[in-house]
C-alpha cells in the first residue's frame, strides 16, 4: 500500500503546484480577448543554448587566464556583455505586441478546430521568430516585418462536443541570439465550438417511406394534426391530448403531420430509449442530411426549439444548439 501511495502524493503535489501556478498566472494575466504583452506577462530565462554558451565562455575565460592574453579577456567579456544586452533585445522582441483573438471555426469531433489569432505590433520595430502554440495545437513561427499586424491560424484536434478551451496560448521567441528564451502564456478567452459527432441512425422514424413528392410524415412540430399516439416520456406538454385524458382514456399525445417539402422537425423525442449523447449525434446526422438535401428543417430540444429553415447559417444555429445542449458534453 505504501508503495502505491507515494506516486499519489507526488501527483497531488504536482497538481497542487499546477493549480497554484494557474491561479497565480490568472491573477497576474487575466483572460482577455486582446492582450498587450508587458513586463507583467513576459518571462525570460537563458535557453539551453544559452547555458551551452556560458560553458563556452568559461572555457574562453580559462584560455585567457592561462595564456595571460588580454585580447582573449576582452573577447570573453565582450561576449558576456553581449549576453546581457541580448536580454533586453529578446525581451523587446515580445514586448509591445498585442495578441488578438480573432475567430474560431467550429469542428466535428475528430476534426481540427481552427483558431485565428492576430498579432499586432505596438512599436515601429520588426519582430522575428515568434512561435505560437496552444498546448495541444499545431505550432506556427512567424515574423512581423514591415507590417503592423499579421494573422495566424492554429489547428487543434478536438474530440468532445461543446466548447473546447485550448488553454493558454504560448508565445515565445529566442530572437535575436537564441541565448535567451522569452515567453508568455496568454489566455485569449477563445473557445472553439465542437459539434456532436454525427451518427447515422436507422431511418428516421416515419421517414422510411420517403416520397420525393412530399408525403406527410409523422414528425411532431408541424401544424397539421395527423394522429394520436400513446404518450412517451419526453413528449412536449403542448402535445398532450388533454381531451382524451378527460375522457378517462390513457394519456395520449397529438401527432402533427409535416410535409417533407415544406418543413421537417428534428425532435428530441424521435429517438426513444437512446442516451443523450447518442441522441444528439443522431440529430446532428440528420440535420446534416437535411441540409444536404435542401429540406426545411427545425429542431426541437427539451429546452429550446429552432424554427424550420435552411442554409449554412441555419445549420450552424442548429448544430450549435446541439453542441451546447446542457452545456456541452458531460465529461468535457
Amino acid at each position, binding site marked *: 500500500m505504501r508503495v502505491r501511495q507515494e506516486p499519489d502524493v507526488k501527483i497531488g503535489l504536482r497538481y497542487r503546484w499546477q493549480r497554484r501556478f494557474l491561479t497565480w498566472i490568472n491573477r497576474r494575466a487575466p483572460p482577455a480577448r486582446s492582450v498587450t504583452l508587458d513586463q507583467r506577462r513576459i518571462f525570460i530565462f537563458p535557453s539551453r543554448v544559452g547555458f551551452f554558451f556560458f560553458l563556452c565562455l568559461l572555457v574562453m575565460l580559462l584560455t585567457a*587566464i*592561462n595564456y595571460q592574453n588580454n585580447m582573449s579577456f576582452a573577447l570573453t567579456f565582450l561576449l558576456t556583455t553581449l549576453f546581457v544586452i541580448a536580454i533586453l533585445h529578446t525581451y523587446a522582441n515580445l514586448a509591445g505586441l498585442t495578441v488578438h483573438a480573432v475567430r474560431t471555426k467550429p469542428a466535428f469531433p475528430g476534426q481540427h478546430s481552427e483558431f485565428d489569432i492576430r498579432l499586432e505590433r505596438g*512599436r515601429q520595430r520588426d519582430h522575428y521568430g515568434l512561435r505560437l502554440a496552444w498546448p495541444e495545437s499545431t505550432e506556427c513561427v512567424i515574423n512581423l516585418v514591415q507590417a503592423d499586424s499579421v494573422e495566424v491560424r492554429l489547428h487543434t484536434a478536438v474530440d468532445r462536443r461543446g466548447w473546447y478551451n485550448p488553454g493558454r496560448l504560448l508565445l515565445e521567441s529566442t530572437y535575436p541570439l537564441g541565448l535567451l528564451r522569452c515567453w508568455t502564456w496568454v489566455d485569449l478567452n477563445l473557445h472553439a465550438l465542437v459539434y456532436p459527432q454525427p451518427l447515422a441512425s436507422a431511418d428516421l422514424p416515419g421517414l422510411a417511406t420517403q416520397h420525393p413528392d412530399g408525403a406527410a410524415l409523422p414528425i411532431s412540430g408541424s401544424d397539421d394534426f395527423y394522429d394520436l399516439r400513446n404518450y412517451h416520456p419526453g413528449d412536449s406538454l403542448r402535445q398532450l391530448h388533454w381531451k382524451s385524458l378527460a375522457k378517462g382514456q390513457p394519456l395520449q399525445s397529438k401527432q402533427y403531420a409535416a410535409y417533407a417539402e415544406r418543413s421537417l422537425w428534428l425532435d428530441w423525442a424521435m429517438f426513444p430509449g437512446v442516451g443523450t449523447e447518442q441522441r444528439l449525434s443522431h440529430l446532428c446526422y440528420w440535420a446534416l442530411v437535411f441540409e444536404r438535401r435542401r429540406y426545411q428543417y427545425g429542431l426541437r430540444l427539451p429546452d429550446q426549439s429552432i424554427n424550420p429553415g435552411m442554409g449554412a447559417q441555419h445549420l450552424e444555429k442548429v448544430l450549435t444548439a446541439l453542441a451546447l445542449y446542457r452545456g456541452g458534453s458531460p465529461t468535457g
Partner: protein
Amino acid sequence: MNSQQQIPRNALVWMIISLFTLAAPHVSRLPLWVLAVYGVAALWRSMVYRGLWSFPGRLAKLALILCACAGIYASYGSMQGLEPTVALLLTAFALKLIELARRKDAYVLLFLGYFICISEFLFSQELLIVLYSVLNITLITTALVALHQPAQHRFNGGSLRLAAVMLTQAFPLMLVLFFLFPRIGPLWSVPIKRHTAKTGVSDAMQPGDISHLSQSDEVAFRVKFQGEIPPRSKLYWRGLVFSRLTDGAWRRLKNHEMASNERWPTPITIDDEPLRYSVIINPTQQHWLYSLRYAESEQAGIKATTDYLLYSSVALEEQYRYRAHSWPDAALEPKLSDWRRRTELQLPKASNPRTRQLARDMRAASASDGAFVAAVLAMFTRQPFVYTLQPPRLGSDPMDRFLFQTRRGFCEHYAYAFAVMMRAADVPARVVAGYQGGEINPVNRTVIVHQFDAHAWVEVWLSGRGWVRVDPTAAVSPQRIELGLEQAVATEGSFLADSPLSPLRYRSISWLNSVRLRYDALTYQWQNWVMGFNSDQQYRVLQELLGQLDTSKFILILLGSGTLVLLPVAGSLLARNRIRTLSPLDQAYLTFCDRLSRLGVMRSPGEGPAAFAERAAQALPQWAPLLQRLTEIYCDLTYADADLSVTRRAQLKQEFKLGLRRLKRARQAH
C-alpha cells in the same frame, strides 16, 4: 524538420563568409590542404543547399574526421602545441559546415567561430589583428542573428546592422569588466607555440647570422626614455655576451660552465643619476632582455647576470614590458678574476694562424693594450674593408680568409675578427650581440628597434677601465652607427632586399612614413595599455582612480556602470515611437467617454456618439447641454472635416478642451 530548426539561407551565406574571414589570418600557419578543405566545405554545403548533393553520411563524416586528424599529425609531426590545436579547430569548423543541417549544428559552428577568434589572439594581439577580429566577431554574430530570422531567404544586411548595434552596446560594459576583472596567474600550463621560429638574436653567433637577421623589418622592441633620448651612436642594446669560441661559433657561457664563485655579478659602485627607460619587447621565445650598459631592473622576474645583462626567468612567449635604468659610463668589472681572465682569453688552438700572428705582431709594435686596440681599428679603416649585407662565405680558418682575402663582411665578421685578434694578443675580449641604434619616432618620442638593427660588437678589458666597448664596424662604416643600416648599405641597395613591400623601404615618401610612424605610436600605446595590461598596472590604475580598493566598491561600480549602459539601451528599444492608432481627436473623445464613465454613464461597445450623448443626457440632465455640445463638436470635426476653416477647427478644439475640463471639475464636485 520543423520550420524553427531550418537554417535560413541568409544565415548560411553569412556563415560561409565568416568561414573564410576567420581562416584568413591563420593562413600562414596552416598547411595548404586545410585551405582546400575550406573550399570543398563551402562548395559542398552550397551544393546541398541547391539540392544537387546530399549531406555526408555517417561513415563519410567519420572518414573526414579521421583524415583531418591524420593530416594534421602528418603536417605538424604531433598533435600537441598551439598550432596543431588551432589547425584542428579550423578544420573542424570547415567540416562542421558540411554537415550543417539544423540550428543545433549552427550553434556549435558559430561558437567554434568565437573560439577561433580567441586562438588568433594567442598568436598576435596587434592592433590590426584586433580590428580584423572585431570584423570576424561581427560576422559571426550576424550569422547568429540571421539564424533566428526564419523565412529570410534573401541575403540581406538587416542582421548585420543588429549585430553591429548589439556589439556596440556591449562594448562599454566589456571595458568595465576588462579593467575590473582580477588578473590572476595561469591556473595550469597550456600548450605553447612550438612551431614558431625563434626570432631575434640567438644564443650562438656564426658569421652570417646577423646579416641574415638584418633582412627582417620586424620590430624587436620599443623603448620609451624618461627624459632625453641619448644620441643614437650611444644606443648599444646589449643582449648577449659571447665569451666562448668553439667550432667557429661564439657562444655564451652557460651557468654550469662558470666557477661557482663566479656566478654572481661583482657589484659596481655608481653615484650619478641613471638613464631610466621602459622597454616593450616582442616575443622572442628566449630569455635575454636588451638594455644599455650598465643596467639594473627592480622588476620581479628579471635577474642580472655576471656579464651585466638582464635575463628573464621565463622565456618570452608573449610581448613583455620591463623597466630598467642604466649608467652608461660606469666601469664594468674593474678587477678581473683569474678564472674570468682565462675564460676571456681562450682561443681554439691552431685556428686562424695568420690572424694570430698578425695580432701578436701588432701588439708588439704598440705601447699598450689601448694603443693596440687603436691600431687594429686603424687597420680596418685604412685597408679596403667593405661593410656589406652580402658577405661571401668563409670556409675553415674563417678569420684568415676574411682579413686577408675577402675583406667583405657584416658587423659579426668585424667583431669576430677583432675579438680573435685581441685574445691572440692576450687582451681579454668578448663579443656582445644585441641591437644598435633604432628609429626615433617623433610622434611619441619612442625608439623603435627593428630586427635589422641587430648588431655585434666587442668589449675589451683594459686595466683600470674595466670592460670597454669597441665597435670595429664603426671603423669600417661610420654611417652604420651614426645613421643606421639603410644609409650604410645605400650604395649596395640591399636594405630589406627580400621584403619589397615593407613600409620601411619607402621612408622617403613622407606621407607614407608619417602614417607608418603614427601607426607605430598607436601600436606603442596599444602595447603599453591594452596588451600589456597586467595585475600591477591594474592595481595602480584602479588605486589611482578609486583610492582604497574593496569588494563593495567593485560591486558598486559594476552595478552602476551596468545601469548606466543598460538603461539607455532599454530606453532605445522599448520607447521606440509607438504606432498611433488613434487620432488626437479620437483620443480626446475617449477621454470624454472616460470622464462620463466616472460620472456613472458607460458607453457600451458599438454605441455611436449621438446615441451615447442622448443616453448620457438623460442620465445626467444637469450636464445635458454640455454633453450635447461636445458630441456635436466631435461629430463636426470628425465627419464635416472639409467644410471647416482652419481657424474654426482650432476654435472647436479649444472649446472641446474647455468642455472636458468642466467635466473633470464636475467629477470632483460630484
